[in-house]
């Protein structure tokens, strides 16, 4: 059986690969959405923090012989801590201002960090091997799926749904959502909003770092790995609806698939297709797929 001249099996395997990429998009845009939601900050540094996560994993292995599994937890923690410091010392002063300022500040942070890593490690990137437990591949019949890629999908789905549940269904999530709109009032109700904000930023960037660690065995660990991605991830968040958790997850996965299909039918366009989707979506649904119109 063929679809538009492509064998069904090939199609299936491309869809699956799209889903893998979508998992990265979902995790990254989820972090962005959480941060935008509560802090009203468009965290441009997200790509750089993703890169930092990957680098930490690499450094852990090369300098301290700490293996993948430990770094999977340690790198997000460290980056989260870094985020906490950034939030406490810098972002904090910008909440009342236009989005623009947060964007600019985090853009500055991005330039600084990428420059720093580049001057130490160069641009060619570092190699990070797939952990032993996950090397090898599943033979699915229609394709060979490396075990590691399957793991990425599983891990990302778990993290995304966990985060979604926490935000949409728990009391803590209600505080977060309310804090998004009127932090002062929520504070007047007795919730420690500043702490919540700090931790949220830490959590959001930790998600980026986690995605970075997950990506390290798949792509070259290089200082520029994040900047290539960040604009696309922004687009994902916007298509999903700024600040919408569900939107970020579903759109992330969906766009991964759309991009995967484009790679088959019109590969040149695969870096641009996200933007085409974005324009179409915003023309029809001004606040994005899952966004609420104010």
């Amino acid at each position, binding site marked *: 059986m063929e679809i538009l001249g492509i064998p069904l099996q090939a199609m299936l395997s491309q869809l699956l690969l799209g889903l893998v990429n979508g998992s990265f998009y979902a995790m990254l845009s989820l972090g962005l959405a959480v941060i935008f939601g509560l802090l009203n900050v468009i965290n441009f540094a997200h790509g750089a923090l993703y890169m930092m996560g990957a680098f930490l994993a690499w450094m852990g292995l090369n300098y301290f012989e700490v293996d993948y599994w430990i770094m999977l937890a340690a790198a997000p923690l460290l980056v989260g801590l870094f985020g906490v410091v950034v939030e406490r010392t810098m972002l904090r002063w910008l909440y009342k201002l236009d989005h623009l300022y947060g964007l600019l500040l985090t853009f500055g942070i991005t330039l600084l960090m990428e420059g720093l890593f580049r001057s130490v490690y160069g641009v060619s990137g570092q190699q990070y091997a797939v952990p032993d437990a996950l090397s090898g591949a599943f033979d699915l019949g229609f394709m060979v799926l490396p075990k590691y890629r399957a793991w990425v999908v599983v891990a990302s789905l778990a993290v995304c749904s966990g985060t979604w549940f926490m935000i949409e269904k728990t009391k803590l999530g209600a505080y977060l959502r309310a804090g998004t709109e009127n932090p002062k009032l929520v504070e007047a109700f007795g919730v420690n909003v500043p702490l919540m904000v700090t931790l949220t930023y830490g959590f959001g960037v930790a998600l980026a770092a986690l995605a970075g660690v997950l990506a390290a065995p798949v792509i070259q660990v290089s200082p520029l790995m994040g900047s290539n991605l960040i604009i696309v991830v922004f687009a994902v968040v916007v298509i999903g609806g700024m600040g919408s958790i569900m939107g970020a997850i579903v759109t992330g996965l969906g766009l991964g698939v759309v991009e995967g299909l484009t790679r088959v039918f019109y590969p040149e366009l695969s870096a641009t297709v996200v933007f085409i989707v*974005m324009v179409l979506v915003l023309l029809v649904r001004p606040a994005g797929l899952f966004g609420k119109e104010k």
Partner: protein
Amino acid sequence: MNKKIGIALVLGAALAAPFVIYPVFLMKVLCFALFACAFNLLIGFTGLLSFGHAAFFGGAGYAAGHALKAMGLPFELGIAAGVAVAALSGLLMGSLAIRRQGIYFTMITLALAQMLYFLYLQAPFAGGEDGLQSVPRGKLAGVVDLSSDLAMYFVVLAICAGGLAVIVRTVHSPFGQVLRAIKENEPRAVSLGYDVDRYKLLAFVLSAALAGLAGATKTVVLGFQTLTDVHWTMSGLVVLMTLVGGLGTMAGPVVGALLIVVLENKLGDLGNALGALTGVEWFRTLGESVGMVTGFIFIVCVLAFRRGIVGEIGALNWRFIRSCVQVRSQSEISKNRQSA
């Protein structure tokens, strides 16, 4: 009165500058200054943050370059072609984006600009990543040979001054008044019978056309046009220039453009000079760290000088004046109390 003196001073300096400073560098600054001012017309006075202005700046550059090089058109028509293409792209992009608000507007402009980027990347005449090279400068009015940097400089100065004049006039025109009203309270403007979308669209097209003027001029000055100018980082750069200089001020974008262009071009020299002066070797590596230094400046600006350089200076004056007034009114109040 003060203002007139200020303008005269600036004009004088601009006329004298090429004899002191390298003209091509000055021309580049001028083009970016015009670009930033055009951008500021949109964000500073209409409140619309576009993240797609590179498409106009670079797109006009391609159009002008193509017109001059491949079609052999004269200088004036080359520039006009650039402006026309920018205005047209502006009309197209604007009519799709204007209907959306806030961050969504910004993102739609980014997305459309990315599509145009794709177009320029693929279009055969644009030369892919090698760019459109060897664009001739031609002659002004068929007479003045522009291959002399000095002659070119005065032409560019005239173009940019003209562009700025258009912006100033627009801001202080009946149209500008409506734009201000829309920026302040859009629903109210609607309820007073203004079709706000059409006003915003005109502002967008104007801004695009002027950005195109800047881009086309830059291409002619430098003699080539590459993908750098249509890439989203260029859209980002112009945001930064405007912000660092001071949003919504007239002089801010000019100052911001100057700062950024200087940073891009002269940081290495500065580092070397510092290195020689202080003997600290590290300074010599500054030239490789334009990105990092730029990043650092933005962090500092955002945290400490949020209104931008010009805005901050303005605020300083204002604060000073206000503190005087406040002292007075306070004493008046206490006087009134006593009498009451």
